[in-house]
């Protein structure tokens, strides 16, 4: 039976990369004595898969991993034991049994939501007084947002507009806070820094630095534009 584990990766754990995190979880599951299923063959490995990897430097409260169990265990107890095997900055927040027909979290992801702020309150963008109006022009009132996207194969032109499902901007304590819902997954995977970069270009700000942003993933979704469902809302406690 398959289980979807939801977790948060915050604080200093942002500096731990995806591969290292996967290894951490393999050991944590082992320590927790969960009856996880192993693959066949000479070098058996735990059947475990993760939804879209989170880049180094980002935090999240909406990460997911699917695991295969040989027998069912009490969800609340399992969640508690797993948490005893976490470190500061990693917290298990969900443990749900998936229906048989549920798609794997890795391939199910179609969108992800983010909160984006500026690390430096003196960032150029923080001084633009009519930034909210400009955002409306850039997003709400535009028909297309054409950018050049660099890929492994070269450069290609891309219209961001249909891949941005939500682009809200509010001012909190005098500073801009972005709330984004973006296309995610294996086909059109849009990183939040790409969207903010395009906005900065629209604002006419000088060269954009990815590292100037604090990016926090809020959740990941499956489904389509008409009906997004959180990966954490699928499944049951038993």
């Amino acid at each position, binding site marked *: 039976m398959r289980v979807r584990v939801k977790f948060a990766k915050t604080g200093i754990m942002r500096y731990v990369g995806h591969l290292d995190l996967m290894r951490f979880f393999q*050991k944590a599951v082992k320590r927790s004595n969960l009856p996880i299923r192993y693959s066949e063959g000479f070098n058996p490995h735990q059947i475990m898969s993760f939804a879209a990897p989170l880049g180094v430097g980002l935090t999240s409260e909406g990460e997911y991993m699917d695991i295969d169990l040989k027998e069912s265990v009490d969800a609340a107890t399992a969640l508690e034991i797993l948490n005893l095997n976490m470190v500061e900055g990693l917290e298990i927040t969900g443990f749900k049994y998936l229906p048989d027909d549920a798609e794997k979290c890795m391939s199910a992801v179609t969108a992800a939501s983010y909160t984006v702020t500026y690390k430096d309150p003196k960032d150029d963008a923080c001084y633009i007084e009519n930034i909210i109006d400009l955002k409306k022009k850039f997003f709400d009132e535009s028909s297309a947002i054409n950018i050049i996207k660099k890929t492994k194969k070269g450069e290609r032109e891309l219209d961001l507009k249909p891949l941005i499902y939500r682009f809200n901007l509010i001012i909190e304590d005098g500073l801009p806070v972005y709330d984004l819902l973006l296309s995610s997954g294996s086909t059109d995977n849009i990183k939040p820094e790409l969207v903010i970069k395009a906005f900065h270009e629209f604002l006419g700000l000088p060269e954009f630095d990815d590292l100037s942003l604090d990016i926090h993933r809020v959740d990941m979704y499956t489904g389509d534009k008409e009906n997004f469902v959180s990966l954490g809302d699928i499944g049951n406690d038993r």
Partner: protein
Amino acid sequence: MKKLALPDDILMQIDKPARYIGNEFNSVKKNPADVDIRFAMCFPDVYEVGMSHLGIAILYDMLNKREDTYCERVYSPWPDLHNLMKERNIPLFALESQDAIKDFDFIGMTLQYEMCYTNILQILDLAGVALESKDRENDDPIVIVGGPCATNPEPIADFIDIAYVGEGETSYPALLDLYKEHKKNGFDRMAFLREATKIPGIYVPAFYQVTYKESDGTIESFGPIYDDVPSVIERQVVKDMDSSTYPTKMLIPFVRAIQDRVVLEIQRGCIRGCRFCQAGMIYRPNREKSVDILKEQAKELLAATGHEEISLSSLSSSDYHALGELMDFLIDDCLSEGVNVSLPSLRIDAFSLDVMSKVQDVRKSSITFAPEAGSQRMRNVINKGLTVEDIIGGATLAFKGGWNKVKFYFMLGLPTETDDDMRAIPQLANEVAAAYYDTVPKEQRQGRCQITISTSFFVPKPFTPFQWAPMYEAGEYLRRAKIVNDEMKAQLNQKSLKYNWHHSDVTVLEGVFARGDRRLCPAILDAYKSGCFFDAWGEYFDFDKWLAAFEKNNISIDYYAYRQRDLDEILPWDFINCHVTKDFLKREWNNAMNAKVTPNCKMNCNGCGAGIIGSGVCHNAR
């Protein structure tokens, strides 16, 4: 949120930032305000190497069991971070608390190989601690080193306050108790160090004076400058491995360490007595742990770490008395699904092949032999009790079992080595390849067998029978490697053979340090100042800078490396008593010159001197 010593922009631009954040599962968290002693335990190399070291794991656990002590870890910042820390004046910090280690009571470093000596200076430099012991003040940390290289601490004498000679389990409690007492009563650095010399195994270089002969520069006299400082330092040895402290949990690094597995030490020391091997001499007597204790520790450590592999650690695992019982237990009773066993340092015989076929994928893994020398004469000189029949027989068994990859380790430049001995290396490999084609019928072969020969260049080490032996110049090592390579190409099965050899410049330098004295200190300091560090890493090793530092300080490589030492010369490490007597080493040197084999400790006591400890193999034999 836990604070970090490094700012976000640095962490985001360096390689593997998770090396520097601490927070590993099972790492120890204490409130620094609650302890009397703060100890920074350092492995002076990169995190992934240092985190794999068992000795530090043992001491970290042992020191943190004391309520009055907080032991934290430090590793060498990689050059990318090193430069940024220097640029921005960020002091070196401990991983757990992220506090600057300059404010700690101790900085302890383990010295596992000579090529880390400049990294000692890097640590002190980044920490903001004076590089030379004489310049340190009362409120500076006590710099203490240990590990195998502390059996000749003289080349780094100027940089350290204390060398702890021997196994850390024994004298640290007394040293820390003494420190605490001194700290309570108004700390005076020199008074503390003077008292510390009364604790067994504690060597304070500043309290010793050396004079040299004008004629040839060798040591004329070596001794303490005060009457109450001992003239001989006795290497510390754990007497009973079963009752000795061992961690019940180990840290789980985020960045993959070299040892990404449980390491279970099954015994200390070795019965074999190979004449080139320092560990085989200084860790005498061979002391085994009881199999019941090991079963318990294996279970406990696997549960506490979640590792999917356990490795048995020792100098010669096949010699452990109950290896069969332990392996059966690990395979049948203890290893749940997905957990693997690895067994380094095994002799290749029917038993070990049977075990290996149970725990690894035969098609993918290779069988490793370390005959160390190609000819029987040479193997007798080094006292490697391995015959050509053992090797061919072992390899044949392995081929029958389905393996077709074999790795061989050899040394070049051993004492008395002739061109014939060198040529015997590929000849032996050729015989092994021939055994494959004789053993495995054509239809069962999966292509050719692969025989890989690796040679390293022999470096004479203190406290071995070869401590008097001359080394060769870098060019001569390469000439020897070429002889091996040419001979390999002349072999019938040359297409199944592959040969790797090491760089020779670094070997010469290692040789200078291994048998060096305190006159090397200024050169090491100059080399560091000119940019040498991470010398153990080929991409950072710069031999020309070293040659310049030697020249500036009138250091002759010839004197330290190439000359044959007289058996009666006072050696820089003679003040250390490793229990193995000089008479024994001389006897063994003479046996080597006569290619005479000495039986192992289980067969016969050879009176090496370690019997005085009264434990382990010496005790059991009686």
